[in-house]
């Protein structure tokens, strides 16, 4: 595999094992750029990258913007208030308007699954999915895989636990698809109400026992529990979640010393993760953020250079 052919990055499912490796390899070389004094290479000079966000985001948007800027692309942020959209203009109208200004790539986030696919079908620009509803968040999965591989040297054969609100998590879905494709064994863990039906068919093992997952895992990815889940009857209380599923230093003692803890952010300290774990030696949380820029540089570079 020497040539990248995909003009879009829509989800992890569409990437082959070789393509995932290629993103990770490319990211490795770009990571060094961000540690330089002059954090810029001319790879995408003259290209325009638009961040078209229909859902609020600070981290992912900033990460993409830095990635594009470090590759010398011109960037624009467009935050669209979807409530004003429902009348009149459709999302496709908005995207067509953006494209009419001759942009090269559109990084899109939307609360509804499939919007990046619809854009890719209807537009000429490269489309990069920065999160579509509860479906997919491919760059997050890629940066998580990059981070794990950087630490442990491999993905194949690793046992990864993903803990939290699996039902509403695009991070969980994308990591599950990506990690299993790369040969890791993924267990999803959380309250039964927050595990989607038939997820076993996507290759996941299911557990409701976080202690068991801690004991068996090489890596754990903890997910944010949103307060609304209590109101929507998914959980009796956030307090009970923290007691039953929250990862604490005490609990981690049952696991391997080298068990790695990850979190896509933003964290609820004291709920799914205790502060000492978040800030502890096993935590990779800030490295994930650092690597995010490198991985997004790799994605932009590959997609815009696609043959």
């Amino acid at each position: 595999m020497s040539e990248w052919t995909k003009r879009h990055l829509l989800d992890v499912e569409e990437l082959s094992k070789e393509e995932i490796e290629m993103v990770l390899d490319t990211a490795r070389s770009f990571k060094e750029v961000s540690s330089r004094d002059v954090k810029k290479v001319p790879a995408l000079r003259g290209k325009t990258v638009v961040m078209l966000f229909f859902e609020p985001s600070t981290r992912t948007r900033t990460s993409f913007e830095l990635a594009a800027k470090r590759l010398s692309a011109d960037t624009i942020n467009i935050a669209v208030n979807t409530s004003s959209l429902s009348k009149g203009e459709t999302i496709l109208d908005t995207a067509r308007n953006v494209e009419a200004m001759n942009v090269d790539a559109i990084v899109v986030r939307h609360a509804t699954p499939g919007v990046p696919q619809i854009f890719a079908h209807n537009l000429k620009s490269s489309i990069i999915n920065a999160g579509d509803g509860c479906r997919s968040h491919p760059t997050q999965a890629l940066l998580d895989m990059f981070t794990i591989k950087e630490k442990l040297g491999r993905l194949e054969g690793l046992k990864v636990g993903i803990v939290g609100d699996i039902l509403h998590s695009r991070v969980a879905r994308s990591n599950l698809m990506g990690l299993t494709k790369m040969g890791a064994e993924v267990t999803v863990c959380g309250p039964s109400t927050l595990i989607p039906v038939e997820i076993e068919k996507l290759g996941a093992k299911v557990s409701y026992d976080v202690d068991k997952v801690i004991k068996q895992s090489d890596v754990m990815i903890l997910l944010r529990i949103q307060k609304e889940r209590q109101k929507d009857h998914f959980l009796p209380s956030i307090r009970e979640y923290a007691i039953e599923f929250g990862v604490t230093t005490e609990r981690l003692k049952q696991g391997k010393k080298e068990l790695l803890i990850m979190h896509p952010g933003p964290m609820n300290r004291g709920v799914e993760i205790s502060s000492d774990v978040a800030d502890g030696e096993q935590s990779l949380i800030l490295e994930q953020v650092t690597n995010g820029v490198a991985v997004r540089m790799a994605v932009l570079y590959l997609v815009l250079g696609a043959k």
Partner: protein
Amino acid sequence: MLLIKNAKIVNADGVSDKLQDILIEDGKIVKIGVNLKADGYQSIDVAGKYASPGFIDLHAHFRQPGHEYKETIETGSKAAAKGGYTTVFCMPNTKPPIDNIALVDFVIREGKRVGLVNVYPIGAVTKGQQDEELTDMFEMHKTGCLMLSDDGKSVNNSQVMRMALQYSQMVGVLISEHCEDQLLSKSGVMNEGYFSTLLGMKGDPVVSETTIISRDIELAYYLGCRIHFAHVSTKRSVELIRRAKVDGVKVSAEACPHHFSLSDKEIKSFNTHFKVKPPLRSEVDVEAVKTGLKDGTIDCIATDHAPHSQEEKELDFDQAPSGMVGLETAFALGVTELVSKGVLTLTQLIDKMSASPARIVGLDKKGKIAEGMDADITIFDADKEWEVIAKDFASKSKNSPFIGKKLKGLVIATICNGKQTYA
């Protein structure tokens, strides 16, 4: 006055063994025979094609008043005639909802003015479809309602439904229930199952449909009342209705062409034309709906013709409205998915599309080609293959998930009340 010549007459009870002529006078079939002579009559020679009783749809949305940008009684009637329909029942979730005699009367008069199909308004069960106060059922029935429904949603309040069933039984009007427990379906946009998990979409579970079906079966059993179930879509629903019939509960049920033709795997395309309520279910459910049609658990086929504008369907999957047009593809889907695949015979399909719906609502002059019956007749070619093309729809809206598909079975002409309404 009209003479149809050389037709192969197909009724719910069989196909004529020779080609026959059908003589029509004053909107009635007056004579059926071989080599009928009728000097001075307009005559149509159908040259051996099938003639069946006109199709009857117990479930369509003509959107008028209020949503004329999607469909009107006129454009809906044209679509119906093109699809071989001669009688269409229109759901009351218009704006305002059809919940009083003035609106019932408006729909009937507009239907007659257009004059292409027999348009029967379905009245709302509750005022404003608000699930609180019953509508004036006696008055609406006298004005022309044969059915009532709060379609678009269930009558969620069980006490309201109990009263509605008891009262409507006295009036002699049938309630058609859209079965969906909205607390369970919540914001679901597709069937809850493997594909909703794969796609990260909010799921509407089978149980949102079956809890209401179960409740209504129990109410109908307890009260000794009739009830009709709209758009049955799940395996479990079919099982519950089958059991209810064995128990002697007076239930009838309809299924829609999309629920016996398409499964939830289609949502992978993110094409909003596949978004519908109840949602497209799993392949197991699709097979169960077919079995239900075959064994008689499901009495009839209804379209749930639900036009929406292109702008609305261009919204993202969560925001786009549910529903698809169906009048112009229903018969062909029946032939393609049921007759060609050995689920139903052609006569059974005609039963499901004409005789059975006529029985359910008590239209005793419809649903059969026989002397003395209404001259509502559909002429079709059961073997003709054709491609569904967006611009060919007579409906004002083109939101069909079947665009681009090749189907078998084409309506050639439609005669309603003795008048040719499509050719």
